[in-house]
């Protein structure tokens, strides 16, 4: 028999094991790399702008619809702004919206799911009927209504309602308000079975409060499905943001996002099809990368589930 390696003797932490399983999912690893590059490129947008000597904001009507050149690697848009730099700045916004809205939705969903699953009974029935109701709503029309609401009528002060970044926060809030249902159902299902387990019973017997049991004993066991569902929903949020912005209801100019770079795309397809092309490619690459990443995380975090339903009925 050959000697055992150190690793085999010492054993591995759960996270090291997960990481090793994750590395086996080639597409997920590549996606992680792609997303890292995109994030760095987006964060380094001011640097690129300084390097190219343009800022993506200055209007230059003598240089509209320029083709690719050294100064403008992807050319210029309808009012002469640099396309590449606007894409990079747009990436900042789209990634920010995707991540924050997905996390916010996951927080709401976890809270509702864990309350329903742990307490059960009337509260469970009430919360789950509510969830069913939200799922039954036609998503996009509802989002359009929410995006068109008058913030003054909601009682927000003028200073907030008219601030420059309001369209950014608004989209995060409304996507979170309608996007929590998947996580809520997942969490509720798992919490239902977890609360019957011995370690939860033991904690109850020792007099732990309901909040302590939910937070300390149940929540950590739900980490895997929540992480997977949240990763998968980042891609969906980015798609939703792009649709709303395309319709003119999402992120408002002058803030660029991949979605609102496409707002005028339908008129542009006749004059400058390339301008309608790039932002869509960025969205596509990002969303597919998040989907592969979620798939890989699912394989890595929950090998038993993967065994049961190879590559995901879960989304």
């Amino acid at each position: 028999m050959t000697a055992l390696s150190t690793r085999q003797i010492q054993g591995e932490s759960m996270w090291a094991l997960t990481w090793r399983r994750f590395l086996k999912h080639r597409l997920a690893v590549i996606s992680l790399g792609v997303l890292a590059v995109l994030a760095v490129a987006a964060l380094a947008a001011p640097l690129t702008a300084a390097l190219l000597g343009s800022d993506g904001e200055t209007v230059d009507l003598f240089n509209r619809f320029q083709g690719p050149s050294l100064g403008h690697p992807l050319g210029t848009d309808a009012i002469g702004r640099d396309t590449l730099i606007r894409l990079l700045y747009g990436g900042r916004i789209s990634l920010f919206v995707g991540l924050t809205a997905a996390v916010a939705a996951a927080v709401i969903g976890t809270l509702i799911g864990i309350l329903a699953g742990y307490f059960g009974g009337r509260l469970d029935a009430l919360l789950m009927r509510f969830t069913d109701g939200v799922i039954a709503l036609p998503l996009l029309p509802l989002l359009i209504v929410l995006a068109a609401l008058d913030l003054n009528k909601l009682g927000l002060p003028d200073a907030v309602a008219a601030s420059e970044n309001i369209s950014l926060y608004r989209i995060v809030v409304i996507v979170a308000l309608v996007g929590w249902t998947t996580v809520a159902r997942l969490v509720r299902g798992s919490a239902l079975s977890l609360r019957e387990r011995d370690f939860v019973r033991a904690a109850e017997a020792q007099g732990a409060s309901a909040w302590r049991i939910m937070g300390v004993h149940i929540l950590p066991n739900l980490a895997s499905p929540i992480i997977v569902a949240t990763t998968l929903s980042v891609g969906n949020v980015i798609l939703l943001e792009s649709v709303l912005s395309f319709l003119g209801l999402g992120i408002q100019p002058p803030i660029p996002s991949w979605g609102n770079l496409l707002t005028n795309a339908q008129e542009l397809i006749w004059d400058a099809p390339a301008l309608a092309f790039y932002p869509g490619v960025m969205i596509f690459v990002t969303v597919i990368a998040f989907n592969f990443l979620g798939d890989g995380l699912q394989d890595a975090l929950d090998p038993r589930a993967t065994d049961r339903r190879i590559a995901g009925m879960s989304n």
Partner: protein
Amino acid sequence: MLHFLFHRLWQSALVMLVMSFVVYALIGLMPGDPIDLMITADPKITAEDAARLRSLYGLDQPIVERYGHWLSSALSGDFGFSRLHARPVMEVLVPAIGNTVILLGLSFGLALLIALPAGIAAAYRPYSKLDYAINMAAFSGISVPPFWLALMLIIVFAVILGVLPAGGLGKIGTEGIWDNLRYLVLPVASLTIASIGGHTRYMRAAMIETLRQDYIRTARATGASEVRVLFGHALRNAMIPVVTIIALDFGFLFSGALITETIFAWPGMGRLIFDAIMGNDFNLALVALLLATVLTLIGNFLADVAYVWLDPRVSFREVER
């Protein structure tokens, strides 16, 4: 069965009631009200006039009372007038429903015709080259922004090749059926591609799960042909979760219709809702949104019925819970 139907209808009616209030309240929160519109139309209206008109039309009443008023006339069949179209709401809605049904029906059927065989083929040999290719295509379909895909189709087929129209419904009379059908090709194609990916992945996952069951091994051991194993034994069982998910996806399909109709200028429900919300056409937006909800609820209901029909182990009584 009857009890199930009754229970379900009652539940749906309740959801509709709650929904109609929520939508009514939300629409009340949108910018402007009918009097604001009158003020824009006639700058001579004074503040006192506006206030008088508001109380005349009941706009100064609390929201619950206004909703009650709307509900009682809606229940008697009066849904009010559309501001944009200057016609009763129902007269505007009915032809639009027809157009949307054509669009959704065609792409729904087409998507299933492609997605189900693709999913079965991928599941038959998991992790083979074919599975890999189908999976990649499905992932791409899920991840592409639907409106952008539509634009790319327009660029290729209408701008570069010039073989298909970029939008509209076709002209009446002057051209043959084929000419009118051409207007359907791009909208149906983009809507189909948008929903194919998800369906393929559901079918694949369900089929893989089914094919590893003991009864499949037993069927093979008795010498049943592969065709019989796949389509006689596995398919029906694999269809149970797929049908449920696809029917639940109906609301998603409707969102797709909104995008597609807006881009291709297809005069259906989705575009009507969008224009109504954007154009402050409160009556039309309200009823159209509720109708979209009804369609989604019908989808959910069909999912339950199909579930019981496909799986004899489940009775209607269990689904009711």
